[in-house]
Each structure stands twice: as structure tokens, then as C-alpha cells.
């Protein structure tokens, strides 16, 4: 049915497995076996030879897509504004990073590109080159049929100057090639039980990141027209199929109500151990599909 969500998985979910106990072939197989139709990757992690993979790797990539029937969804990239100590990237250099990744994403068949810009403040305001740099590549994105989507990610909530800035940019340029990616970690409303993150204890954002931002899912209503992609971030689903951190029973009905029909791309980010994520992703797919079926069973 056309008004159903699409289900995908990000290879990022398998961060603790990939490269030591899991190859890209096995990653594809684990994703395909969930019944997902889409695969999301990180360019710098999962593309051997990034940003210019050789023919052998490209053959392997397209062979895996053929064999599993998965479609490329979103490719994650970075604009490393602080590549050098003491001198940030210029607008031209930022645009060149975006061009590099748009080109690769297109070559691999992706429809979305998530660039992560360097920031200039503790509350994660992106380097101001983001707007002119993106503006310079909008024509290329249009030509390649790719939507560039910055992610709205904890500790940045929906109602925040950064998000307002992205929306103003979309309105000002009228572009169809720049939109928002929502990371469902912003809806986390219960603390993480076991999590060792890069952010040290005592940091101002530590409590937010551990206890959750608790953004009200109803806030999605106000930004609905700008949402292009959803990373279904989660941390732990217990043996009773209960998510301990993300209130899916509140998130899914709102996504239905605003008419979202894009991807829910699983992004597991739990304990830093191998062999955990594969089944966690399977659990999430059962949980999300059940909730969607329950939403669909209620007459509109």
C-alpha cells in the first residue's frame, strides 16, 4: 500500500561488528532478512576506497543490491570544517566536500545525502559556511536527484534556531533538494541503562544524552512538510519486545497522521559490543511493524 512506511536499516547499526566480525556481504544479508527494502550507509565507513571506489568494489556493491533486492536510501557524509587546526574550511572547500559526496552517493544509487557539518558552539550551531556551501551544490543535487538532509539529532530539539535556520533556507531558496532528517533519538524519554559514549561524564550535554531530550512527538506536526527521511534511532529493546528508551507508541501515530510515507531506517546505538545489534534490529522491525498495523487498523 502506498501510504505505508518503508523499512530500512543503516549499516551504522552494526558498528561494533563491521570490520572485525562482519563483512559488507554479511551486513547486506542481515538487513535483507528483516524484510527491509532499503540500506543506508556511511560513505567513509562502508565504501572501500572512499571517495573513489575501484571497479571491483563497485561490481561487488551492485551485485549485492541485485542479490538482496535492497535499494540504497541515505548515505551519511561529513563536512569536516575543522580539518585543519586553526583555520576552518572556506565556503568553496565546504562545497567541494558536498560535491565529492553527492557524486559518490549518485554513483552508488542513493537518493538522500546526510552531511554532518562541523559546529562552532557547545549547543551545536553548525559552521555558518553550511548555507552558502549547500546553496552552491543545489543545482548538482537537483541534477543527480538527491535530497541533501541535515539530521536533527540529540541534543538539538525540533524547536531550535538551528532547525529554524534550515527551514528558512528551504523557504528562501524554494529548493526541493534540501530537507530535514529526523533522528528519533530526540524522542528518548527514559534513561539509557548501559551506554558508553564519546561524551564524557560531567559534560553539560551528558545528562541530556543519557536521560533523553524528551521532545514531544506532536512537534513533528509543525515541520511535517520538511521531513524527508527518518533514522529510527534506538538503544535497547528487551526480551518482551519493549523499547526501553524510545516511545514508539507515541511516535508512530503522529508519523501516520502527518502522512509520512518515507523510510524508517533502523539505527541501533546500544552497548558497544559485537553480536548484539543483529537481533536488536530484528526486534525493532517487529515492534514498528506491529505498531504500524495497529495504526492502520484504526479508521481515520
Amino acid at each position, binding site marked *: 500500500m502506498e501510504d505505508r512506511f518503508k523499512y530500512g536499516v543503516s549499516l*551504522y547499526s552494526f*558498528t561494533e561488528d*563491521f*570490520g*572485525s*566480525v562482519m*563483512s559488507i556481504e554479511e551486513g547486506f544479508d542481515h538487513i535483507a532478512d528483516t524484510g527491509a527494502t532499503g540500506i543506508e550507509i*556511511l560513505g*567513509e*565507513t*562502508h565504501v*572501500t*576506497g*572512499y571517495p573513489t571506489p575501484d571497479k571491483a568494489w563497485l561490481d561487488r556493491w551492485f551485485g549485492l543490491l541485485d542479490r538482496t533486492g535492497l535499494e540504497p536510501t541515505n548515505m551519511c557524509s*561529513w*563536512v*569536516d*570544517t*575543522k*580539518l*585543519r*587546526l586553526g583555520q576552518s574550511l572556506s565556503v568553496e572547500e565546504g562545497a567541494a566536500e558536498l560535491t565529492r559526496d553527492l557524486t559518490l552517493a549518485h554513483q552508488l544509487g542513493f537518493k538522500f545525502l546526510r552531511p*554532518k*557539518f*562541523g*559546529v*562552532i*558552539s*557547545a*549547543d*551545536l550551531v553548525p*559552521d555558518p559556511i553550511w548555507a552558502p556551501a549547500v546553496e552552491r551544490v543545489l543545482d548538482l543535487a537537483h541534477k543527480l536527484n538527491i535530497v541533501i538532509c541535515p539530521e536533527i539529532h540529540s541534543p538539538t530539539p525540533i524547536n531550535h534556531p538551528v532547525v529554524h535556520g534550515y527551514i528558512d533556507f528551504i523557504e528562501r531558496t524554494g529548493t526541493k533538494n534540501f530537507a530535514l532528517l529526523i533522528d528519533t533519538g530526540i524522542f528518548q524519554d527514559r534513561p539509557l541503562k548501559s551506554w558508553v559514549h*564519546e*561524551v*564524557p561524564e560531567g*559534560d553539560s*550535554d551528558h545528562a541530556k544524552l543519557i536521560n533523553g531530550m524528551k521532545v514531544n512527538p506532536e512537534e513533528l506536526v509543525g515541520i511535517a512538510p520538511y521531513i524527508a527521511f527518518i533514522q529510527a534511532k534506538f538503544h535497547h529493546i528487551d526480551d518482551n519486545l519493549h523499547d526501553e528508551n524510545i516511545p514508539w507508541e507515541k511516535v508512530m501515530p503522529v508519523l501516520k497522521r502527518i502522512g509520512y510515507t518515507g523510510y524508517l531506517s533502523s539505527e541501533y546505538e546500544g552497548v558497544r559490543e*559485537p553480536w548484539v545489534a543483529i537481533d536488536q534490529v530484528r526486534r525493532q522491525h517487529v515492534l514498528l511493524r506491529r505498531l504500524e498495523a495497529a495504526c492502520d487498523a484504526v479508521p481515520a
Partner: protein
Amino acid sequence: MYEFQLIQSTGFRNHGPEGARDGVEVRLRLPNYRGMRLSLLDGIDVTLDGEFFSHEVTSLILGGTVYDLAAMRDATTVRWAMGEHASVLVPKPGGLLPGIHHVKVAALVRSPYFPPHLQPLPVHGERLATIVLP
């Protein structure tokens, strides 16, 4: 494929000519979940059996080239790719005796999308590892 731990078992060895060792190599997997340009790495602290070597004196062997801290900071076009090993070269005349040693590393990684006060952040590894040859 990598060994799971940051500090790899294989590749932990003495450096320099046999009989005139001038250092120790500690082989690492990429200390990040994404491949990165080498200038985002701000050196690697190493502690061998309690003896501390600052990131200002260690260097990194990547793809056959040796980078000291200044060279690393300049390496904006060199990539440490996912799947690729690199070895920290610790200046320790005589090297280490064959046997089991306590090894600690802190790779200082700058992630431009993290708040400025969290750059760089140390990525830690600690284990017992074995030197086979003198």
C-alpha cells in the same frame, strides 16, 4: 579484518634492526567508526608497562609512511581508511623483552561536529599484549 580490540595482537613488535632496537610498534585498528583524514588525529599517547610516552614523541606508521605530530596535523589529504591498520611507533631504545606487556593507548581524535570543548576526545585502549621476538 580487524581484531575487535583497538590494540591489535598481531603487529605488537620491536622496531629497528635486531640487536639494535630503537622502539616498539603498537598496531591499532582505526580509532573511529568512520574513515578519517589523518589531520583529524592529534597524536596518540602510549603507556608501556607504566612508562608514559606522550603523543608529542610518538609517531604513526600508515601505509609505509611515518608521521610525527606535526606531519599528522598537516596530512589533510591522507586518509586512514576503515579496515586499514596503522602502528604507533614508540621511541624506546632497546625495545621490549619477549613476553607479556601491559599496553595502554589514547588516540586523540577531533570530530568537527562535536562541541569545540570536546575536541580532541581520547579514544582509549588497554590490554595485555605479547612481544614474540627480541
